[in-house]
């Protein structure tokens, strides 16, 4: 089994030098007359943790829907490792793992059944799928619970299962849409650490949508999205310097022109 997986990983070495994990160029979208994204551009290199910072309604979820090709954008381009999401959806989607904001596990099925379903949707053979599921559940510290119904898990455990599921088909880009919403502090920290390790140790590109500034660290990249527009993007320190602010919270407030009362601004004096 492992040999087969290794062989698969050797098949197309040309891709090893392909572009960014995610590249979004001049992306715009509207629902009817309501424009929700305005010429959004951003990039996530492999191995980088990139935070997409914005308040509720900033356009984060729409951006995720477009990247995952739930629907196509009106204009602009999205590429995953150089594969255009519209022109080569299969190539792009196979390199993409996603954890959506809303829970997308089937509560009536067990953990292993949820993972097996996802594996089938990516065309994985049963044996391969079982081996990968066991490995991912072990990494998520959920070994021995594969047969348990998802309904019986805590919120943090469900998120861990969703991350395990997102990694099952071995994506190289991981999108997470506010994955810590509704979790307690310990579960938040655990998931954040887990995802950072994936970027640092396994070279995954990570796009982490959040409205919580304390989830962002100095070494991260950050994209400030507000009312469908990217106001600033780059390494955290560059964004802070460009805004002429003492910390990211102040930079966010200055860039968005908002004052007081939102989590994105209150969250820190970072």
């Amino acid at each position, binding site marked *: 089994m492992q040999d087969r997986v290794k062989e*698969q*990983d*050797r*098949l*197309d*070495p040309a*891709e*090893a*030098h*392909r572009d960014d994990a995610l590249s979004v160029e001049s992306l715009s979208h509207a*629902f*009817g007359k309501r424009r*929700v994204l305005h010429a959004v551009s951003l990039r996530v*290199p*492999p*191995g*980088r943790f990139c935070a997409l910072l914005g308040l509720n309604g900033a356009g984060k*979820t*729409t951006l995720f*829907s477009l990247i*995952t*090709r*739930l*629907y*196509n954008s009106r204009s602009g381009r999205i590429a995953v*490792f150089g594969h255009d999401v*519209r022109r080569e*959806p*299969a*190539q792009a*989607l*196979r*390199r*993409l793992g*996603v954890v*959506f904001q*809303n*829970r*997308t*596990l*089937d509560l*009536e*099925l067990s953990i292993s*059944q949820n993972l*097996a*379903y*996802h594996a*089938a*949707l*990516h*065309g*994985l*053979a*049963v044996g391969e799928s079982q081996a990968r599921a066991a490995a991912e559940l072990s990494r998520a510290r959920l070994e021995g619970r594969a047969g348990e119904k998802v309904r019986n898990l805590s919120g943090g455990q469900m998120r861990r299962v969703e991350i395990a599921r997102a990694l099952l088909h071995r*994506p*190289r880009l991981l999108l997470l849409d506010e994955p810590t919403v509704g979790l307690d502090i310990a579960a938040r920290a655990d998931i954040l650490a887990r995802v950072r390790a994936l970027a*640092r*140790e*396994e*070279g995954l590109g990570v796009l982490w949508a959040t409205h919580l500034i304390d989830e962002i660290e100095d070494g991260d990249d950050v994209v400030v999205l507000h009312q469908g527009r990217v106001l600033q993007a780059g390494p955290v320190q560059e964004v802070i310097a460009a805004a002429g602010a003492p910390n990211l919270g102040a930079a966010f407030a200055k860039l968005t022109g908002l004052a007081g009362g939102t989590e994105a601004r209150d969250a820190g004096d970072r």
Partner: protein
Amino acid sequence: MPAIAETAPAIRPLGLGAHLRCLRGIMWREALRFLHQRGRFVSALVRPLVWLFIFAAGFRSVLGVSIIPPYETYVLYEVYIAPGLMAMIQLFAGMQSSLAMVYDREMGNMRILLMSPFPRWYLLTSKLLAGVAVSVLQVYAFLLIAWFWEVEPPLYGYLAVLPALILSGMMLGALGLLLSSLIRQLENFAGVMNFVIFPMFFASSALYPLWRVQESSVLLYDICRLNPFTYAVELIRFAFYGQLNGPALGVVAGCAALFLGLSVLAYDPGRGLLARRGGAE
């Protein structure tokens, strides 16, 4: 930047085997969900049996069914309505699938399906086939019980009816898929019951032969003839007795293709309704 970042993904193309595994996975999930919802199975079985045991028994003496193809002699009313009840099981199964799709969309589960790397038409067709498989099993469970109620076609009829069931199941399931793309919220599903299931069932040849309907109302007769469900019933009725109803086959196959095509269009990421309304959020 970690060295491992240089090893960008290398992926085999999705071949026939992968496509079949995807289909199997979707069918397996549908079967699991069906098994977990025992109430769904029981109600799917009880509904037609109530019609057979109570409604048909009551109308047996009131409604005489003269000799009409495919029957070679006078038949009991129970025998006459059995194909209509088989189609009814499939109609409800199709709408149940539609309800499940809307539910999945509201719960977010549908995102997992739609962001699979397989083409969307393939995913929707797989989903459709999974629903058809479940509905065919329900029909055979019904037929097993109905056999004790004097619904006894020739033995080969049980086999001959299978292709008809698959085709009619695809038509009704595809209609369900199409409706699921139009229904925005779960609450609106009650409207489907009122405006789709009941009119389709009652304005058809499921309960009465069309010549009887024509005797009482020409308008209703015309409506019945425009109703694709009528043709599904007749396709099943003829196949149940080892005969082929050509016009019914044509209408059912044509409607199945039309409904599936429209569903694929409705779920298309570029042109579909989801794209315009921002569904599956």
